[in-house]
């Protein structure tokens, strides 16, 4: 292979990856790797931790320190890794089910502590690995194999959740604008604290088919149409904001990072 970026950061012998044709996960993953490349970080200093699900398989393909953990627990493992070795840049790759359902509590508390971990959620609105069950981010009314008559659950706004819980950098982007994902991951890694990046991606195989969303290119175009940049959004009159998904940098605040606080305690003795 002659693709420099892929060659440099992937375990290329393990490609092609397991993701379905048209799955957006590969796009998000490349965007993350591009951010690491742009920042010029040393591969040995990066630890990527994932949970269980389609997106969490990402760690297997990356040539960093990689830990593929149990369902929902990536942030709990990552907390142990970061606290035990603060020199590592810890990046968590997770999915909407992994992070918002079974791992929801870990997300809230990692954000509350403001521990220096960058979390990237690959949100495809479905449980793909198990064959298309509705997730906490499946839009109300949409179908999954466990919502054959349409999902009656309200869906989660993960960025609002992360912000409320205490994350100090929160942003959203889509696989339509993969360069924005890269920019946001760079900002997330640079932020000394808990950073939360929601990357909206596509699952043509399950979510798309079940909800008649068309093929992968069509679904990527739908992401473009559904979303609006944060600056443009706030210029819209209230009545025109309804139903639009806001992308861009949504929140940023300064707050002391968890390990810095702990180190202050250690140094006080």
């Amino acid at each position, binding site marked *: 292979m*002659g693709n*420099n970026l892929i060659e440099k950061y992937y375990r290329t012998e393990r490609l*092609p990856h397991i993701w379905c044709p048209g799955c957006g996960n*590969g796009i998000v993953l490349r965007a993350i790797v591009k951010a690491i490349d742009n920042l010029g970080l040393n591969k040995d200093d990066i630890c990527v931790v994932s949970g269980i699900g389609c997106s969490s398989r990402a760690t297997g393909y990356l040539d960093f320190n990689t830990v593929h953990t149990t369902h929902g627990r990536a942030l709990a493992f990552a907390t142990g890794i970061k606290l035990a070795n603060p020199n590592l840049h810890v990046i968590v790759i997770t999915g909407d089910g992994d992070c918002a359902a079974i791992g929801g509590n870990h997300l809230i508390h990692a954000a509350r502590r403001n521990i220096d971990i960058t979390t990237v959620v690959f949100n495809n609105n479905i449980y793909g690995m198990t064959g298309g069950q509705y997730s906490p981010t499946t839009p109300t009314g949409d179908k999954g194999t466990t919502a054959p008559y349409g999902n009656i659950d309200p869906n989660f706004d993960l960025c609002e959740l992360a912000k409320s819980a205490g994350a100090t950098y929160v942003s959203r982007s889509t696989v339509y604008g993969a360069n924005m994902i890269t920019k946001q991951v760079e900002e997330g890694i640079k932020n000394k604290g808990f950073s939360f990046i929601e990357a909206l991606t596509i699952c043509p195989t399950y979510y798309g088919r079940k909800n008649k969303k068309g093929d992968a*290119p069509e679904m990527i175009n739908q992401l473009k149409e559904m979303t609006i940049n944060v600056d443009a959004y706030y210029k819209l009159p209230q009545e025109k904001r309804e139903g639009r998904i806001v992308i861009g940098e949504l929140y940023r605040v300064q707050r002391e990072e968890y390990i810095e606080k702990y180190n202050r305690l250690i140094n006080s003795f």
Partner: protein
Amino acid sequence: MKALKSEKLNVEEELCKGCGICVTFCPKNVLKIEDGKVAIVDIDSCIQCGLCELRCPDYAIYLGGK
């Protein structure tokens, strides 16, 4: 515009899963799916915008490289 043509467009056929994303987003109709894989059908029209590489989920198409 010829000066821009410094980077070659490459395809890794064994990585391509034929999803057609690159074909759809190529602004110059350089690409086509043939027998389930991407094929370069009009390289002279390529403007090296890199959209195919950016949105290829399978790392099967890219500009430049070794």
